Each structure stands twice: as C-alpha cells, then as structure tokens.
C-alpha cells in the first residue's frame, strides 16, 4: 500500500525534492532483519516500520507515534496515522514547498480512503 502511494506521480515528484526512499526487505535481504532490529530497538514494531534519517544515518523521526504511546503507524491509512506520517515529512523537509506538502496530503487522504476502517 505504502509503495503504491509513494509511486503515484504527484507524490513521487514532490517527495523527490526532499527524500530518498529506500526499502529494506527484512525477509529477502541479507541483514534486513538485523538492520530493522538495530534501528527500531525495543520500540513497538510490526511491518512496515518507517524512519527518516539524515545523511549521517541519524534518526530524525520514526513511525512510532508518541501521541499513541509509541504505536507504530505502519502504512498510514487511518486519519491519525496520516497525521503522524505528515508530521514526519513536515519535520524533516528542507526543500518542499507548501504546495508540495498540500499535494502529498491530498493524495494520501484520498488514496487511503479504501483502506480505512470504519468508526475510527
């Protein structure tokens, strides 16, 4: 779901201004699980788990949402998960404009609708 969203043309164009996207497959890549364990530590996990790093490899923010006791938002679908994902982007953007961020938000809120569970 996340890969499909990030591949949408408008999203990919906006994201490319600030983020290199790298996926580590914990099952198929050697050392994939080791890296996941190293970076996630003992925080709540599950897959997908996301982190935004600087060029030195230092974590700037992760998909563990402090507003939800550190729960992992995973692939953001519910409104509160989308809010945290957008926070991750807003806190780490350097070049994206407001228009870029608005485009990403609009695309995500629309894209996520079929995946949302009722009553949340």
């Amino acid at each position, binding site marked *: *779901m*996340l*890969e499909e969203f990030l591949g949408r043309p408008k999203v990919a164009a906006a*994201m490319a*201004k*600030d*983020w*290199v*996207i*790298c*996926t*580590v*497959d*914990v*099952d*198929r*890549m*050697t*050392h*994939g699980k*080791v*890296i*996941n364990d190293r*970076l*996630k530590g003992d925080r709540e*996990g*599950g*897959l*997908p*788990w*996301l*982190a*935004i*790093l*600087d*060029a*030195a*490899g230092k974590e*700037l923010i992760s998909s563990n949402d402090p507003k939800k006791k550190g*729960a*992992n*938002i*995973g*692939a953001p*679908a519910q409104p509160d*998960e989308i809010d945290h994902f957008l926070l991750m982007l807003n806190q*780490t*953007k*350097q*070049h994206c404009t407001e228009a870029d961020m608005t485009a990403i938000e609009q695309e995500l809120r629309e894209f996520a609708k079929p*995946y949302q569970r009722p009553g949340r």
Partner: protein
Amino acid sequence: MINHRVGSLLTGFALAGLLRAQEAKAEAKPPDPAQAMATALAKAQKHNKRVLAAFLIKEDAAGAAIEAAMKGKEFAHLLLYEFETASIGPLAKAGADLAAKYGVDPGTPALVVLDDKGKKLGAIDGEALVKDGEVRTEAVMTALKKLTCAPLDGEQVLAAALVEVKKADKRLLLTFDAPW
C-alpha cells in the same frame, strides 16, 4: 496500521487474500499480455526478483491444473517472494507475439523465467511441467528455485542510499517491509 508481523499465520492469510484479490482482478478484466509483462518487469527490477511468464490457456485442462498448482501454499509463497508473475494468454495476438519472442509453442503450456531486463533464463514446459495430466509441482518448484535472484545485502542497500542522500542534500525515508 495495515500490517503487523505476527508469524506464519498472517503470512497464510496474506497469501490467501492476495490470491483472492488476484482472482477478483483476473475475473474483472483479462490482463493485456504486453502490459502484464511490462508491469512484471518493472516490479522485478524494483524488487530484485525474476519474472515468471506463465503461458497458459485457461480453458485447457493442463493450463487450469498448472494455475491451480501455482495457488498451492508453498508454490504461492515461492512466487510471492521470488517472482513477479505475468499471465500470458498465448491465444491473443499480443500473447502469441510474446510466445514467439521467447520460443514458446502457443499451444503448449509453459513457464518462462526472465531476468528483470527481459532476458530468458529458462523455461519449463512439456513433460517437465505436466506428465500424465499431473502437474509436476515439486520438480517445477525445484527448477524455479535454481533461477531465483541472489539476495541483496541490506547493509549495502542502506549504505548506497545514504551516499545518495548526502550527495543530494536530502533525507532518507527508510521503510522496512516484507513481501507478504
């Protein structure tokens, strides 16, 4: 959150769900063979996988049997993890063109393995695929496993991404995921 990793039970559910979704899509509209191939090649390139081009006539007993075998738990797991599957109906013009390109007899079921550039690495057809009306599932899976990609090293993938981040003055959105 959409996915949590809780072990093989969920993997089974995910596989079943994936197969149901694929069946629903297939019933909705038969895929264009050329488009199916292009999509599979693009995904294979992105995910370090091979393409399995399945030249099957669904109305044919052997084709239906092979398709059913591919939905078996272990076979489906192998396909999910190591292959992007392109279903090619060899009777359609585009399917026949692809059959000719890869040296497949359009009247005979065949599984062709390609690398992510579209180069043919191997093919399984004839009695190697179906003998006396039975799909040779174990032998086919063994043959397919020999043609899978070498796994990427996650440490190298991460290191290369960080080099790109530094060069481009960007940040790294790192996602951890699994095929299921």
